[in-house]
């Protein structure tokens, strides 16, 4: 009975019948494409098109009002040749790397502590995570109140202890450390949660076997916990660096990039160039450079992670 269908030569079918037969034969694929198409269209218009537009503008001297004049790689050269932008990039790298160097070990230590069977553990975990879910604008406002040169909390403490008030806003090191403190404090909650999950995934049998073999607390940590956290460490490091390079809120709300451009970062300068200086060429080329840099850094880290797994 079915043979009549199967042996019917496809050349004798109409286009509609062939389409129907195709749909029957590829039901799963059709369903998948039907579900995916809207999101792909959305992705195309709201991600691909802006990225490509950004790329095109980066080769122009567009100020938002004039016609596009293509200037080749001029904006890219400007970014690397101008010491202002070099400083901005190195500030960004400084904040990203140092906040990671402080935040990652801190996250591990706190996660190890919160992984112990202690009373009110849930409250401690919540307290550590609150800054992560609190709005950056609110935390920034709080920081401003604390570091206000006149009547600020820090200076009330400093003067209360008999020292001279500090003008935090004009002190390069102080302000950079305040920004770092903000970044670490706000970001460490996520690191802790990730490490807690990783710690709870380590089989207890490993520790029990090690104890039977006479391993001490440090040896158990060094030979079991640390290796078992390697993948998570790579993940936290990669996402931390990517996030660190995109630091914006504290700069925009606390320091405005000053003093002496010492806290200015790439995203903040992209905003300044686009909306204050109306120099969309350098703004978009900076965005492209940052994106390429992060892509490159991610690729290297992912490769390292894969090599680690293989080893």
């Amino acid at each position, binding site marked *: 009975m079915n043979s009549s269908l199967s042996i019917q030569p496809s050349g004798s079918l109409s286009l509609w019948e062939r389409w129907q037969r195709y749909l029957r034969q590829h039901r799963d694929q059709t369903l998948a494409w039907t579900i995916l198409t809207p999101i792909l269209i959305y992705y195309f218009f709201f991600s691909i098109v802006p990225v490509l537009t950004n790329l095109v503008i980066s080769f122009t001297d567009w100020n938002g009002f004039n016609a596009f004049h293509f200037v080749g790689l001029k904006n890219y050269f400007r970014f690397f040749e101008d010491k202002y932008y070099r400083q901005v990039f190195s500030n960004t790298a400084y904040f990203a790397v140092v906040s990671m160097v402080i935040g990652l070990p801190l996250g591990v230590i706190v996660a190890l502590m919160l992984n112990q069977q202690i009373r009110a553990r849930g409250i401690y975990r919540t307290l550590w995570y609150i800054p992560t879910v609190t709005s950056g604008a609110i935390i920034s406002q709080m920081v401003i109140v604390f570091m206000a040169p006149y009547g600020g909390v820090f200076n009330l403490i400093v003067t209360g202890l008999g020292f001279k008030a500090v003008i935090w806003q004009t002190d390069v090191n102080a302000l950079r450390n305040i920004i770092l403190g903000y970044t670490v404090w706000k970001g460490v909650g996520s690191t802790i949660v990730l490490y807690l999950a990783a710690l709870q995934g380590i089989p207890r049998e490993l520790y029990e076997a090690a104890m039977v073999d006479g391993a001490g607390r440090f040896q158990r940590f060094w030979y079991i916990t640390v290796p078992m956290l390697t993948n998570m460490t790579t993940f936290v490091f990669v996402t931390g660096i990517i996030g660190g390079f995109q630091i914006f809120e504290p700069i925009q709300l606390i320091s405005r990039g*000053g*003093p002496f451009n010492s806290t200015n970062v790439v995203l903040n300068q992209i905003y300044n160039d686009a909306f204050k200086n109306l120099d969309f060429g350098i703004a978009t080329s900076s965005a492209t450079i940052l994106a390429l840099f992060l892509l490159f850094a991610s690729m290297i880290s992912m490769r390292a992670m894969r090599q680690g797994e293989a080893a």
Partner: protein
Amino acid sequence: MNRNRLFNLLAVLVMASLILTACSTPTPVEKIVEVTKNVEVTKEVEVIKEVKVTEAPAPKGPVTLVIWGEGITAGQLALDASADAKAQYAHMLVEGFQKENPDITVQFENHGWDEELRQNLVNAMLAGTGPDIIVGEGFFKNFAALGAMMPLQDIDLSNAIPGTYQGAELNGKVYGLASFTSVFGFERNCDVIAAAGLDCAKPPTTWDELLGQAEQINKAGAGNYYGYSLQGPAGFSMGSAFRLKVYLLQAGADMSKPDAETGLDYPYFNDPKAIPVYEFLRKLEKQSVPGLAFEPDEGKVYSQLFLGKSAYQMAGGWHVQWAKDTGCTNCQYSAIPLPPGGQAATVVVANVIYGILKTSKNPEAALKWIEYTQRDEVQALVFAANGRIPTTRTALEALRPSVDPATQAYIDLLLTGKNIQAMPQWVKNPQKVWQVYNDFLIKLFTTDTPVKELMDEAQAAAEEAVK
């Protein structure tokens, strides 16, 4: 395999086209026919586009005039004008104008001020959704230079105070007019001055007198009150630069000079005449409330005088009401002290300018509205609404007899002042230039480096920033 891929691609394309077709707005068929059939019609369409960008034609029939106004007036529109005198100005601007022009509906919107406004404006203009009229203070010349503003052709400026539209004047063309304004005067808290054993009836008239009195007050205050409130570099606020420019102008110096090519302002941070000004400011900072000069919250800086923490400060016209509201019953006002051989000068501040965007759909209605804001009956309501001062000569003269002596002093500054200026609008990269100036001020107030050296360094950095 290739066939399958072809079908997959076809399926995606069909679905994408269906969705896009469903989402798209219908295209008027007639237009397509005209353009494709007749080459001359295509040309006509191009001409219309050109006119739209440069000078939009007056639309026939009812129009909606979209105005981006400042927040106070926008907020007062929600109040009942018959019950609240403060709201009368806002209602006059909208309802009074509509009454006279029944075919125009005014849509008065608040999109913030300063940075927030500029960001919203740039976004709107890039998206092609800009208003007919924009409000602002410090970017009209920049926008005009970029070709985004429409000059106010044939507008009568004989009654307007020149300094109030200087911020919107580029190469002889005026791109906006201020609806209300203010200038700087000198404010003192007589309670503090009396506590220091000085006579409040004799405010300082020279910089030397000011420094001398401030020092005396500091000594007498012994940490409880100080001689002066100086706003220094903060990074967030332009308030400091506004006031420092007054001192510069008094000494015949400036922070900018005209750029010959564009007519915009070129940084001039190493004007030799400015050296004594910055040296004076450095000394004045030592007599100021400690730390206050670096406070980013401008409101906090200037309210300290009302709270009895300092004796003197430079103040905008709105301080008169602010002082009363904050409980300073003995705050008084005088002319700003002068340097040796100096001339009286001031800077317009809180100067709310309205201008027409070139992309305005209703430029004639927009021009009508801007002219309307200059009328005596409209300007007469400004002071009651927000404590700011009118911008036309006749309105200022009419208001003068009915206000307190302090406000009279501000009105006199506008009516008789020979040197009233607006803040510079930099030829390029305003954020970087202001950052340079801010950094210069930080070094001025926190180091002992010679002023000349700091000025030259700032000038070099500013020139780099505008390259």
